[in-house]
């Protein structure tokens, strides 16, 4: 074994391997302004989410003053309806909302992409069964369905993540199946079958890499939708439960303030909007790159 690795190392130097990093650097240099804007905004959000305890002036739940204080040096964005620091809650909310959205989207993609690939590669009755089941799930409006299910099983974080992931995976399934259908008919998939490759290899090594660009683009969009679904569920009181901060419930809790001319409830709403715009800018750039459109 040891011999084998050294001998192969002798062979390797002639091979010029392009690293992912050098490709990424080249692409970034060419990225348009909108993509840069999106990337920077996303980076700031991630920074805020990861280092929330370091940058937030107070903790998420600490009451630091009177209810609904206006902004001051003491509390930069004022306080909320319970006297907690608004800015700190905004920063901690990035952590909760983003984390849950990423987890949910990843889960829905795993379910949707695996089932979609199975459908496309195997075809036949498996395809029919999966396809029709998805049709049934999609026939019911997503948000209402999610609310009904949450009301039945109770609003806990795992339930929330699972329900949204499953409901959202129907969309992923359809996209995956549609694009994979175009790939499974190509000769190289047939060649792999004739080579005696197993189902898993064909799905993950032959087909998946070729449908990755549309899936990644879809990931960006789905991420935004999941994010908005969680926020709207929180707004209805079915999402992330207090005292955990999240942007949707922050809007709801402070909604009445808008009457007295306080802009506080608009700030978390703006945070949601800005991230959605930023993610879409990056997705647009990626789609443009991979679709081969020029000019």
């Amino acid at each position, binding site marked *: 074994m040891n011999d*084998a690795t050294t001998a192969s190392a002798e*062979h390797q130097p002639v*091979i010029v*391997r392009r690293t992912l990093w050098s490709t990424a650097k080249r692409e970034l240099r060419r990225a348009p302004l909108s993509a840069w804007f999106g990337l920077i905004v996303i980076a700031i959000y991630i920074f805020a989410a990861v280092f929330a305890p370091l940058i937030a002036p107070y903790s998420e739940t600490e009451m630091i003053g009177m209810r609904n204080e206006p902004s001051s040096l003491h509390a930069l964005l004022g306080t909320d309806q319970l006297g907690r620091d608004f800015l700190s809650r905004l920063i901690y909310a990035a952590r909760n909302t983003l984390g849950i959205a990423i987890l949910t989207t990843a889960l829905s993609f795993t379910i949707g992409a695996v089932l979609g690939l199975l459908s496309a590669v195997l075809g036949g009755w498996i395809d029919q069964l999966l396809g029709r089941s998805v049709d049934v799930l999609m026939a019911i409006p997503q948000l209402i369905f999610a609310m009904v299910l949450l009301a039945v099983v109770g609003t806990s974080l795992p339930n929330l993540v699972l329900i949204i992931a499953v409901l959202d995976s129907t969309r992923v399934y359809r996209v995956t199946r549609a694009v994979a259908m175009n790939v499974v008919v190509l000769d*190289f998939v047939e060649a*792999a079958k004739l080579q*005696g490759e197993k189902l898993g290899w064909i799905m993950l090594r032959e087909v998946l890499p*070729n449908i990755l660009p549309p899936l990644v683009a879809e990931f960006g969009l789905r991420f935004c939708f999941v994010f908005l679904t969680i926020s709207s569920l929180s707004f209805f009181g079915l999402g992330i439960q207090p005292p955990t901060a999240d942007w949707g419930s922050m809007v709801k809790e402070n909604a009445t303030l808008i009457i007295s001319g306080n802009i506080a409830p608009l700030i978390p709403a703006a945070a949601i909007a800005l991230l959605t715009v930023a993610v879409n800018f990056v997705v647009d750039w990626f789609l443009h790159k991979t679709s081969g459109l*020029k000019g």
Partner: protein
Amino acid sequence: MTQASSSRAGQKGDVLLQIRGLRIEGESDEKWHEIVKGLDLTLHRGEVLGLIGESGAGKSTLGLAAMGYARPGCRISAGSIMFDGKDLAKLDEAEKRQLWGKRLAYVAQSAAASFNPAHRLIDQYSETPIWHGVMNGSEAKRNAVDLYRRLRLPNPETIGNRYPHQVSGGQLQRAMTAMSMSCRPDLIIFDEPTTALDVTTQIEVLAAIKDVVHQFNTAAIYITHDLAVVAQMADRIMVLRYGELVEEAPTRKMLSQPEQAYTKSLWAVRSLQKAEEAGPDLLLRVNSVDASYGGAVKVLENVNVFVPRGRTVAVVGESGSGKSTLARVITGLLPPQTGDIVFDGRALPPSFKSRPRDLLRRLQMIYQMPDTALNPRRRVHDIIGRALEHHLGLKGAAKDKRTIELLEMVELDQRFLDRLPSEVSGGQKQRICIARALAANPELIICDEVTSALDQIVAEGILKLLLRLQKELRVSYLYITHDLATVKAIADEIVIMHRGRVVRSGPKTQVLTPPFDSYTDLLLSSVPEMDPDWLDGVLTRRSKPAAMAPANA
């Protein structure tokens, strides 16, 4: 109207198109580089000019430039394109649109992809003359029927009412030629109009085009990579390479005394011949196989094919003859309805799913389109290495060493290891496909039209490679093709298929020696030859079948 009739006043022999110092640049990787490097071209009224060259020679780019058009991502950077007194390189879009379709027309390679599938043929025909105000609707329809008749389409009165999918490929190509002639243009650009057609269909399209171009005294630029075809169509031939002119001469002179070495090498490709050898023992026997795709229509009917060890059997036929289906039956992708397949003395399980891995290893396949046969996201060392790992259990250094050996066997080297399929040329892709097949140490390789997507010179290289590998490795080929020149180059035995049946089979010389059955005769006589009189000769003979005997040399 007046403009159209005045343009027709020109005499045969007047200069119609004069291109001087034309340079066209294309953009890739944010750099501009020249595709056409300073070409001159003169075309007279009523003259047919043949443009030949390999892909990438710039012939299509030049053809489009003759209409003043540059593809997206290309630009005309220098030179003039004088068409009947106007410089097309300087006209703006609106002025060119007045000429396009009316005085300059274009016939694309794939008629099927160029017609709008949602409209009837005759409506698409009428669109251009009506838009240009040359004719009104009913005139255009009468005119279409007239042209359909001249192009020898069946049922000229009613065929225009069909949709594109309701007519055959050859008919569609003729309908497109009719469409391009609707305004009686001065110049038509034919861009490989018969490349996608079978030889038996091609001959009809060629004859129709030749006829109608002469009748209307239309000048034409005929772009192709097939020398025998251009020999029939063109008065004069230009050979292009790397965007530069190699040689230009009248057709007969060009064929009989090519001057440049490159032109001579193009001419020599067709003369590749393999001496036929009888095989020692049979490796594969296909016994009275019937097959169909689910329905009642049989795609294969009582097919018998025998492949000797270490020899090549060519399966010849037009599209729809079932030759690719035969490959699917042998590989087990389509289990036969009746009949059996015996490989090396033992019956093959009908479906590939029930074949043991070792059997899959011994029987490999190479595809027609190397672009789709290689996974575009996997690098060359992954593609070949996986086959080695899977079939022979090689790993690590042994695998890497063998991968390089295989690349060298197909005349590539280790610089290709880390490339993606999109980073190599078409011929190199096909070589990688061959290396992947060889990685399994196969005994039989099924080659499905492996050279038909390639240029002649590249195809010749692949054929030579296959012959050499056969000699070294004693592998058998089942070679599926519609091209008889390829058959002569590679086969020991020939099987001719027509409508799912084997019409003729046996050793090469025996199959290619008369007397022929009627289909074999039709097929063999449809293969274009380098003789410029060939097309006229065949057509005269076919029109009076009684005088079929030794009419033409």
